[in-house]
């Protein structure tokens, strides 16, 4: 018959067992999802990121600049006619500029925004007192190549922009609460800016017919955005509902009027030497589609956007200046 264990031994064994149980219970209780709250997702109203500034009664809302083949000069001209960058940018603002840097193409191929237009905007924003100007996009082709061969990496960086090459860590899942787009990974540098300038190029698009200002917001998205084509019009309208930019500057110095949005052949492009500045992204698109022989009424997302009150397809009804 073995000896009975000592009191000390008994206490220590019981203590060890109790301690282990207490630790397990503590962890369990601490992380207890008693009412399955972790499964439930909240849902609320449509989200809007509004970067607009209040309109000025004595300034135009819509400017078409032509008359030179110098893309930077055209951009400056359009900005000046709008009342200058100081109308939009306050001292110390962080400004995000969103060109189209979708494709691994050079500037003459007219698949990406012209680098001189982007650089002119960066300069103007910095001159107007912006603390920092971020230039970014989430390319379709390999981003490093697209940024470099678009010329935007070099030219925007040279005038002092912070060019952000898209990376996994720049995307944050964000709720859009759109009709179609609920929750998507979105480029953080744009969402976190004080002011956002959308700088699209005018191009033909096989499915949407036109890619310009509103379609350019596709470049905010990460994730499997290829699914969005199943209802491209609603998805574009959802993005334009979410993103209300401070200013839209349309690069139509040269446009891609067929074989878009990627092009690749100089024969698909046309030199137009035009830059459009607009407070209204719908009007900007409605005007731009005429530049590549499309009718605004044929473009589904413009109609949805107008119906949602995002802007007007009747650009001529705005305060227009031609310079």
């Amino acid at each position, binding site marked *: 018959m073995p000896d009975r264990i000592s009191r000390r031994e008994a206490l220590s064994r019981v203590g060890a067992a109790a301690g282990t149980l207490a630790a397990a219970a503590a962890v369990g209780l601490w992380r207890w999802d008693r009412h399955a709250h972790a499964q439930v997702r909240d849902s609320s109203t449509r989200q809007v990121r509004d970067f607009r500034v209040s309109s000025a009664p004595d300034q135009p809302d819509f400017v078409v600049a032509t008359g030179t083949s110098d893309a930077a000069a055209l951009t400056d001209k359009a900005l000046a006619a709008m009342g200058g960058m100081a109308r939009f940018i306050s001292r110390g603002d962080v400004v995000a500029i969103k060109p189209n840097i979708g494709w691994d193409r*050079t500037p003459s191929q007219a698949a990406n925004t012209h680098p001189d237009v982007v650089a002119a905007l960066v300069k103007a924003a910095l001159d107007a007192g912006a603390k920092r100007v971020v230039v970014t996009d989430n390319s*379709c*082709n390999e981003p490093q*190549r697209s940024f470099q061969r*678009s010329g935007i990496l070099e030219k925007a960086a040279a005038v002092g922009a912070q060019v952000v090459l898209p990376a996994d860590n720049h995307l944050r899942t964000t709720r859009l609460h759109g009709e179609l787009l609920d929750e998507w990974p979105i480029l953080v540098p744009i969402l976190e800016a004080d002011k956002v300038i959308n700088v699209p190029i005018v191009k033909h698009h*096989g499915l949407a017919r036109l890619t310009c200002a509103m379609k350019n917001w596709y470049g905010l998205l990460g994730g*499997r955005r290829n699914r969005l*084509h199943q209802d491209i019009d609603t998805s574009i309208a959802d993005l334009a509902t979410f993103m209300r930019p401070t200013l839209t500057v349309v690069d139509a110095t040269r446009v891609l009027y067929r*074989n878009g949005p990627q092009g690749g052949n100089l024969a698909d492009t046309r030199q137009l030497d035009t830059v459009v500045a607009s407070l209204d992204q719908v009007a900007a698109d409605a005007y731009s589609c005429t530049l590549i022989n499309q009718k605004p009424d044929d473009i589904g997302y413009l109609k949805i956007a107008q119906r949602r009150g995002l802007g007007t397809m009747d650009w001529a009804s705005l305060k227009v200046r031609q310079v």
Partner: protein
Amino acid sequence: MPSEQLPSTHKEKGRDKPPGRKPPGSGLPPRRSIRILRWARRVTQTATLGLFLFFLTQTTFRGSFSASADVPVRLAFPVELFFLINPYAALVTLLTSHTVYRGLLWALATVAVTLIFGRAFCGWVCPFGTLHHFFGWVLPSRKNKGAARVAANRTHPVRQRVKYYLLYAFLGAAAVGSAFGGTFDPIALAVRGLGLSVLPGLQYTVGAALRLLADSNVRVLQGVADVAQFVLSRTLWQASQFHYHDGWILGVAFVALVVLNRFIPRFWCRVLCPLGALLGVTARHALVGMEKDHARCTNCNLCLVHCQGADSPQGGVTWRQDECHVCLNCENACPEGVIRFRFLPSRESTTTRPDTQRRTTLASVAAGAAMVPLARSADSLDVNYEPRLIRPPGAVEEREFLARCIRCGECMKVCPNNALHPALLEAGIEGIWTPILIPRIGYCEHSCVLCGQVCPTGAIRRLTEKEKTGVDQPPVRMGTAFYDYGRCLPWAMQTPCIVCEEFCPTSPKAIWTEQVEVPLRESKPAPDGGAPAMKTVKLQRPHVDPSLCIGCGACEKVCPVQDRPAIYVTSVGESRSRTNVILLDRKPS
């Protein structure tokens, strides 16, 4: 042999006098020149390993903030350098292609070094060798120190002969047209293991850790994570996580070879390395070598403690020049002045050649050569074309490709879209670790030619952008795209899509669409609960024009049918082949 009884005596001695405290034996200090050279070796090893790792991390494209849009995209460094100075790669491809491709002529520099100093490349330059040197030093257990370590560093003739027979087998295969031997090239093993497995694994780990910081609500930590991600993506890896098909096998092989150092130091270098074997054969004519004064040897075995090549530096036996890495540890350790490296030494106590047997040598060559018809008379090459065998753009015809590709992994590492992957069996057993394009993981970027830039042996031609995209000439085609109409949204589900058309990079696009009006059933039942109503929808249905398709795989990559895509590329129609064709008018370019 007198040295056979020694471990025990050494053990006793070692117990009361730990080595390093007081010089054992006569305690003669090593020559000053040897001490300096030993440090020079360590510096060189560190520098070459560092250079190798630097070039490995530079084998990728990161956008330049200063390059203008019209400058062709090229790499800033000759990242394939260690393959260019590799005589094994040069000899294998010389035997297969009867030429020395471009920069491979630099291999002569290594041959020259070997003919002067012996296998100094192994001991001083080879980055894989340096890794084994390092791990052979840190990994051995407590048990594997002292006498056990001395025993592990004695020449093991049977084991060490293996590498020569392997070399002869690979050269035999090369003689009949296969660069299969590249699978055992040490530099290739290092690039594949580190570049395609260890580095992506590290990126995964670090990325997960930094995401934890980014998800914290502490602003400073988020900033740290952002800066770290940016710096790492511009130095060690790239902005997105890369995934390599079956890459884990390469990582396991690499780690296993490194871990073997725990049991036998430099196992790879002594037993398996065909490059080491080639240099070992070459070293028979080396001008520098070792002389031994056997009479002064006290069998203390200190020379064996850090011997790298297991080449019998100790007294009483002949030195194996073909095994020696010229690390100089033995002369540095010898307290009696027995060992002396010098220019044009007496070869009295030197064995210059491998102790291989002629019959086994011939059998090895024959076995290697026989492997080629064995593999090629199987079905993969001529009759049963593998649809997944999509080669990189500019790859030469398959037989020529198998003759040139040394499986170095450079093209897979450099591909900015993570499109190129090591084949396991897609190219037949002979094509293991050769590059294949897997469009579902990454497509071939239209005007990118980097894989041909880094290919050291010409298995992938150095294309210009114009040759690849077909300016004033036919473009390079890697295959042809096909629709799976049963899965394609506009075809099978009457749903708009054509993302494939958007991404098609040719002009005019190889994917064209047809406008159709088709009936579609509503998803909801009729108000009375009856059969759902029918409606008519307008759709664009895509088609491939095989005469324009270049097989880049962009359509397959972006197809929203996520698991098995509704459009996929197979190798048929590749411009490098005259036989793997569909259309009558498609001429190979």
